[in-house]
């Protein structure tokens, strides 16, 4: 357990650092690379939480697909690759204020409510002789079949929509 804790804190520290770098760095491509670090950290946390299938999906979708899209977006919009003088707007202090306010409220609420609850040591969702992945897939295709289908339709609609929005000949 201690080992897990050490891992958690090391990874968490790295994630927070990388996330701060994402929103402060002046280089768009660097921001994207830091974001990859955050995503990888999130995947590692998922593994600590015994959700290996979500972790794998996280790596595949976020790092594999979404980040590639982001990099394409950066290149297609010809944002200056490299140091940009001013990547933060004039109202950044509003952002700081809002974020600090949110952090304070949420932090207080969380500590107040779940002060020292521990996670159950046996985090394996117990299926009958199955792994977490099997349980997840079973419930997606039975209990959550309709949300699943709706998400598929949403993805299709987004795909068509993205093509329609972005194509040139109109």
């Amino acid at each position, binding site marked *: 357990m201690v080992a897990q804790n050490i891992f958690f804190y090391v990874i968490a520290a790295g994630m927070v650092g990388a996330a701060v770098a994402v929103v402060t760095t002046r280089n768009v491509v660097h921001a994207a690379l830091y974001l990859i670090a955050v995503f990888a950290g999130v995947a590692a946390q998922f593994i600590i939480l015994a959700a290996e299938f979500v972790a794998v999906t996280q790596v595949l979708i976020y790092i594999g697909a979404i980040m590639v899209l982001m990099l394409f977006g950066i290149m297609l919009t010809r944002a200056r690759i490299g140091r940009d003088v001013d990547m933060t707007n004039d109202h950044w202090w509003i952002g700081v204020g*809002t974020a600090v306010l*949110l952090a304070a409220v949420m932090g207080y609420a969380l500590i107040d409510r779940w002060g020292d609850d521990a996670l159950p040591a046996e985090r394996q969702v117990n299926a009958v002789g199955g792994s977490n992945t099997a349980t997840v897939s079973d419930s997606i295709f*039975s209990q959550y*079949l309709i949300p699943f289908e709706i998400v598929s339709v949403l993805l299709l609609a987004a795909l068509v929509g993205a093509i329609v929005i972005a194509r040139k000949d109109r």
Partner: protein
Amino acid sequence: MLEQAWIIPIIPAASFFGILLFGKRLPRKGSELGVAAVGVAFVLALVTQVQWFQHVDDAENESEPTEEHAAAVVDIDSESAAPVQEEEQPAEEDGGEHASIEPVTREWTWFQFGETEAKVGTLIDGPAVMMLIVVTLVSLLVHVYSTDYVGGDRRYTHFFAFLSLFTASMLGLVMSKTTLQLMVCWELVGVCSFVLIGHWWEEKANSDAALKAFITNRVGDVGMITGVIVLFFAAGQTFDILDINTQALNGDISHLALLVASCALIAAVMSKSGQFILHTWLPDAMAGPTPVSALIHAATMVVAGIYMVSRLYGVFWEGLSIGISSVNLLALVGGVTVLGGAGLAFVQNDIKRVLAYSTVSQLGYMVMALGVGAWTAALFHLFTHAFFKACLFLGSGSVSHAVHSFDMREMGGLRRWMPHTFKTFIIATAALIGIFPFAGFWSKDEILAGASQLGGPGNYRVFMVVGILGAVMTAAYMTRCVYLTFFGEFRGHGQPHESGPRIVVPLWILAVLGVVAGLANLPSALAPDSVELRFEHYYEPVGAYFPSIMPEFAHPEFSIGIALVSTLIGLTGIAIGVAWYTGRIGLRGITERNRLADVGYTTLVNKYYFDHLYTGVIADGTKGPVARGANWVNQNVIDGVVNGAGRLATVTGRWVYAHVDQQVVDGAVNGSASAAQGGGQVFRQLTSGKVQQYGALLFGAAALFAGVFIVFV
């Protein structure tokens, strides 16, 4: 081989990938792979056929151990895919009485969701074996034909790859064990049809035709999916075809569910098998290469709908009460299609379109036969039709190869230059019209006999009349087609010539089959016991999953009267056609003289205005009028409300101004007005149009409210 039948579709599927990957590097650009794969599949299908015959005979021997039974002497070679007539079997009693013949099945779990397992597998029984032979044989001949016909085409390899894929999916369809597998293969053949219709997609008309076929089929697929889902739940969460049929016939499924499922599935049949009112894609599909039209749009894919009905016949039988009613949706759809399709065939100038409408009409016969309960007649007609219609299509391709056009106005007199094409075309035409003793005679006759004898108290006699009318029209339009193409003077350009052996040989094979295929199901009145009703005997399923166990299920008896009438009718139709085109007598010029005839002609030329209905009324209807309606609501209703409110406000305002405002509130109003102005100035600062400031407000407000909740609640 019966258990190993899954190998048959795997071979062309493998050839599809092989051609795609290596086709261009092979000496014949991949065509040899396709021909070889389909050839092997054909041989295996023949082996399956022989073993199935033995299986049937064994089942009977077990039920009657006393009867002496010679070993089945099966003599099959590649030239007779209707080998049943060559068999010698000892006598036995009529089809309905022998013991149940177990279909040979094999299945694997495809995937699992929750407790339910979706399976795939092979279901080998009579109709499946019959279709295996038809599909592999026609596909093989079309492959051979195509090596010449599309030779030198820029997408030659691609063409053969998709022919292979089509063959594989069609074979998968015919031996489907589950409705799910049936649906997947159903879609796969649809995709192949789409790709092959649009083979020459550089021309807009071709890609439009492909799209039309695809989209029209999607309409029917909604019905297919609905039907499969309804059956899945009604039959206790199973996709298994045998199980569903057995339950339907046992009465384990409510009649309403069966009715809904069969009506939904009829929509699928309407699109896939070109039945009215979703038939419009089939004639346009002739934009594809001719071998494709022969294989997909005449012999195999378009009969998928008929095959699906025959597969789930227990469902239709119970759902539509076929055995005891006098009219039902299936028969009605078929009957309308018989006449509608035949009428359209008269006014086409494109030879392939004549044949396409003829196909529509003939498919209508099959659907009608299924609707009246003549299962065997429908499948028998499917069997014979596949051969002679493929022959007609390939013949038209041969003709167009010679004159470089499909327009019959540019043909004429071709019998002098193309003797082989001419002879095979004539044979196939005779088979289509139903002249004794060609194949179409036997099968069409059985349908007519079925319509006159089967059914409940009211009988299906009206469909017999429809069938006879259809026969006259068939004879007349085919005569017109043959006359314009092969007789008279040549009206085209250049010098026509006979096609090469790779085209002529498949034509002759199909023409021979067009003659002998009818002998597969000789009626007992005309034939010795050993060769009568072989088709029915071997191909009609017997068992709890097929309505033959029902008391109402019957086979029509051969009726000499109907046979005579239909032959005479056919001859009359030919006579009308001949008289029209040679004697120059009859109703020539009637469209100019008679208004009614003119209207009729125009309607036919415009294909009953179905295309106008679909594109003009339905498609435009959903954009134009809806937009106009919205505009009207906008202009009249909403503006009216706004204007009315405005006027009301004005009137009220004047009154208030006169009586209240001037005396009482003036001072207060002035004060609050300046307050509002000041407030407005403040809020104007906030609505800066900058998304991020809105975001900041949103998050900040959320945080504030959350804080308030935490502190006070």
